[in-house]
């Protein structure tokens, strides 16, 4: 046994999550208790975060052959863990109101977080694949978790078939790459790549097929079509999870993979990603403009945002990586916040997804409306919010890399995007009309509200004083 070459400290965050999920499962077996399992989940997430704070460094070391733990990975792991914590906080109140068995959800949540975490630190096809699948399989169940809802099943099924389908593409692509390069390790592939100035065609084809799988997870055009349906059908906290954590892991993986093999030297790949980015930015924003379902709007917006991130990804370099990191923070906070608002306003029967549900919200629940406004403005990239600085970072990296066309498309499409964000805002500030048959009767939980307010405060804090965060990112990426 070659356990000796694994420094246990290095993989502790993942291990923590594993232990936590097993613990959760055992606790269910002994006695079902929502609060207890919730506390277990959140404390373990907190624990991981604390561990990261205490032991994190930007020092890079490998856990051969599967993992690499570096600053970038550690930073995003922390982000993912905190986001998972936020999602779990939101989930508690959300599921407490519903009669389903709530406890399994936390196991799945922990496992999905684990999957995303694995993606973040993996440097090998096997760990990439396993991380992806742990994430996906947990998500299938999470999406369809509310079995009382018909949409939930439909969404789960769609997600399952499509994810498996695209996984097959990813696998086939990896197989082609492996067959061409003889290595499944990123560094091994990089060695092969640097040894062969002209890559064989199967290598390219394999990468392109991998992009299908990665693109699916990111929800970028043309692999985006699942996103609105799944977001709509999934419970709001799960949608938040999909929008943020599951995509974030993949983004990091993509960055790492490309960085390691230096994919930017191949115009084909750059062109492929540029096309995807442009298509995502435009299609995502345009698709949302007439949409009346808030969750679908957020889904389309996340498609567009992934397009934006790809701009920074394509810009590459230190600045590009910084931009991606910063944007991920802003994007995570904002999306979780936005879906959190949807979650807090949802009731037994359905989620607060109709645009009309938000009519006059500002006068009914000013705090929630204010939070949602901040989130939407952040998504739209308006100053005083982290989203603005995120977008600023992206554009900066794009301009720096002289990707003028991409940047101009980014700007133009985000103008289109403004329309639907402010449409929701406008709805919230309108006078509430008379009683509505379909009106929601949510029970507001303090824990939700506090979570949202904290998220909102963070967004505004980072919007006004981003220096601290920028420093952090800087330190981690050194």
């Amino acid at each position, binding site marked *: 046994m070659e356990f000796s070459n694994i420094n246990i400290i290095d993989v502790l965050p993942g291990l923590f999550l594993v232990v936590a999920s097993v613990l959760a499962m055992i606790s269910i077996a002994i006695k079902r208790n929502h609060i207890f399992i919730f506390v277990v989940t959140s404390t373990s997430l907190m624990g991981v975060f604390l561990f990261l704070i205490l032991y994190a460094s930007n020092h890079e070391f490998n856990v051969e052959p599967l993992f690499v733990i570096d600053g970038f990975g550690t930073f995003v792991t922390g982000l993912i863990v905190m986001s998972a914590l936020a999602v779990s906080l939101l989930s508690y109140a959300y599921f407490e109101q519903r009669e389903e068995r709530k406890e399994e959800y936390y196991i799945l949540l922990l496992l999905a977080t684990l999957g995303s975490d694995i993606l973040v630190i993996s440097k090998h096809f096997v760990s990439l694949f396993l991380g992806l699948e742990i994430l996906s399989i947990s998500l299938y169940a999470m999406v369809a978790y509310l079995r009382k809802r018909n949409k939930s099943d439909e969404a789960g099924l*769609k997600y399952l*078939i499509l994810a498996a389908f695209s996984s097959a593409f990813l696998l086939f692509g990896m197989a082609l790459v492996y067959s061409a390069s003889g290595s499944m390790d990123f560094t091994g592939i990089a060695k092969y790549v640097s040894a062969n100035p002209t890559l064989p065609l199967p290598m390219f*084809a394999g990468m392109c097929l991998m992009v299908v799988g990665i693109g699916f997870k990111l929800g970028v055009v043309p692999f985006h079509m699942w996103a609105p349906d799944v977001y709509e059908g999934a419970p709001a906290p799960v949608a938040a999870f999909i929008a943020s954590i599951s995509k974030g892991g993949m983004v990091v993986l993509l960055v790492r993979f490309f960085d390691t093999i230096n994919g930017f030297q191949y115009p*084909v790949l750059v062109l492929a990603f540029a096309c995807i980015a442009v298509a995502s930015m435009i299609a995502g924003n345009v*698709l949302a403009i007439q949409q009346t379902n808030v969750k679908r709007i957020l889904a389309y917006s996340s498609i567009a945002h992934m397009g934006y991130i790809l701009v920074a990804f394509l810009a590459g370099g230190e600045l590009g990586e910084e931009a991606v990191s910063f944007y991920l923070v802003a994007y995570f906070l904002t999306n979780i916040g936005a879906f959190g608002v949807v979650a807090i306003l949802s009731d037994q029967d359905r989620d607060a997804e109709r645009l009309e549900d938000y009519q006059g919200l500002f006068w009914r629940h000013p705090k929630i409306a204010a939070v949602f406004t901040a989130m939407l403005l952040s998504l739209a990239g308006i100053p005083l919010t982290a989203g603005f600085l995120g977008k600023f970072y992206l554009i900066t990296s794009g301009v720096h890399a002289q990707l003028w066309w991409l940047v101009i498309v980014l700007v133009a499409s985000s103008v289109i995007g403004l329309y639907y964000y402010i449409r929701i805002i406008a709805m919230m500030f309108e006078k509430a009309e008379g009683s509505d048959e379909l009106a929601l009767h949510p029970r507001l939980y303090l824990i939700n509200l506090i979570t949202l307010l904290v998220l909102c405060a963070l967004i505004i804090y980072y919007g006004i004083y981003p220096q601290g965060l920028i420093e952090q990112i800087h330190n981690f990426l050194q």
Partner: protein
Amino acid sequence: MNLLIIPALPLLGSFILIVVGSRLPKRMIPLVGAGSVGLSALATLILGYRFISASLTSLNVIAWQWMDINGLSPAIAFHLDALSLVFIFVITFVGFLIHVYSAEFMVHDEGYARFFAYLNLFVCSMLTLVLADNLVLMYLGWEGVGLCSYLLIGFWYTEEKNGYAARKAFIVTRVGDILMAFGLFLLFQTFHTLNIQEIAGQATQQWTVGSHTAFVISLLLLGGAVGKSAQLPLQTWLPDAMAGPSPVSALIHAATMVTAGVYLIARMHVVFEFAPEVLMIVGIIGAATLVMAGFAALTQYDLKRVLAYSTISQIGYMFLALGVSAWSAAIFHFMIHAFFKALLFLAAGAVIEALHHEHDMFKMGGLKNKLPVVYWTFLVGAGSLAAFPLITGGFYSKDQILWLSLASEHGNIWFFLMALLGALITSIYTFRMLFLTFFGKENTPVSHVPGSSMNIPLIVLAVLSTVGGFIELPHTFGHLTVFSDFLNPILPSVTVQEDLENFEWLIQLVAALVALSGVGLAYFFYIYKPELSDELKSSAADLHSFWLSGWGFDKLYDRLLVRPFVYLSNINKKDIVDKFYDGLVMIAEWVNRMLSYTQSGILRWYLMGIVIGGIVLMALALL
């Protein structure tokens, strides 16, 4: 005695009336209104006396530096010299008389205070115009009088057409104003100053006669003058301006404001002298206008419109005089014209008020005995206007112009013949007006006989329009040159062509004969055989209506400028540019609908999307 007090007093009056006018007792209003102008007139007298007795050439007062940027430093500063003294004398005195007249004339009107406020404001602006020592300040006065003219034409604002006439007056004169503004810009560009004295000084240093810049500048200044003085081709506003109360017509549209153009040209004569072609144009405009307006006046029914066209025509004489460099003749005619035309308007106002606001002369008649004061004063005014020989002021002033239009070194026979034709027409329409109004049988009963407050100004003006003429007598007849001598330091005297020097008496004779024959013709057509005039009218009906409409200028401008503008702005009311953005929105929505079809909810469709993506990506790899 500060020069400032002269414009300041009416301004103060106006201010008081605007702010507290509605709360003042009714008899206080004319006291403030007329009083302020009266004091101003008094101040003018005192100042004028001192000015003359101290034999000053000019007097400068700076109130404050208006602005001062990179060489452009106009001040709120006043400059008094002989020319402006004549003008402020006329403005304050005639103004005062008209105020006094208005005190009775307007007494039953709701907007009594408003009327005096506007009128005071007008006097102030007019004084600023003539006293200004720089062109920017003059422009201020220039626009100010335009504003007051607008306000007073539209004084009875509930009538839609008054408002229209008022706006027309403002807008048409503004066309001239911007030409003048261009002149200012060019002057500033040329001399880096807009001070009138400095311009005059620099012009003589820098220019030679016929200089191109001088030509352009004078032409532009002429544009302004033409607009304000209702000369061709911007004369169309003045007949409509008669919608205002009669005192307004008297003060603004006869005596003072409309002669601002004359003042401008006289004031800037130094510049004009460098552009003889423009002076020629001034003469041509004057000659053409005086004839054109004369014919139009011949056919009018409305008493005040006759007077309006006559004003245009008389200012045409002044322009003619300016055109032949007969500066002081123009100013002399201005002064006399101010007296008699104010008189005629005031008298006409009295007639109209007496007849229940009846304007149509053919519905008047036989007022000779009903309104004796009005009749006699009107007769004096008409005589003066028709240049009845020897005893009227108008004879002397107009005679001078007739003579100089031929004899000045810039004059020629065509100017003279035009002027002569104008003189004939003038006396015809003047006496047509007189005969129709005061003779014949009474068509409308008299309801109101003017009181003393209206009569006194009439009488004073009648006296002035008679006596005024005697301060400047021709060579052949007393050779008195008080007026031109007084103006000489400012306005150079005219040089007469030597070979014509001895024919002055002949010209005078011809002019007198022409005037008299005009009277005779009027008598023949309107008293002796009135049916003949009707016959004449029906036999040349087209020409008649052509003249009646003021030579069709209104229609022309309406078709050419007003309607296209209104049409264009109306069809573009919704802003065509916006359609472009609507189009963008429509495209976005269309694309959105198209893309929404792809989100069909059907799983296989989504799978297909992934496959297509894969195919495209691999195709990229193959490329």
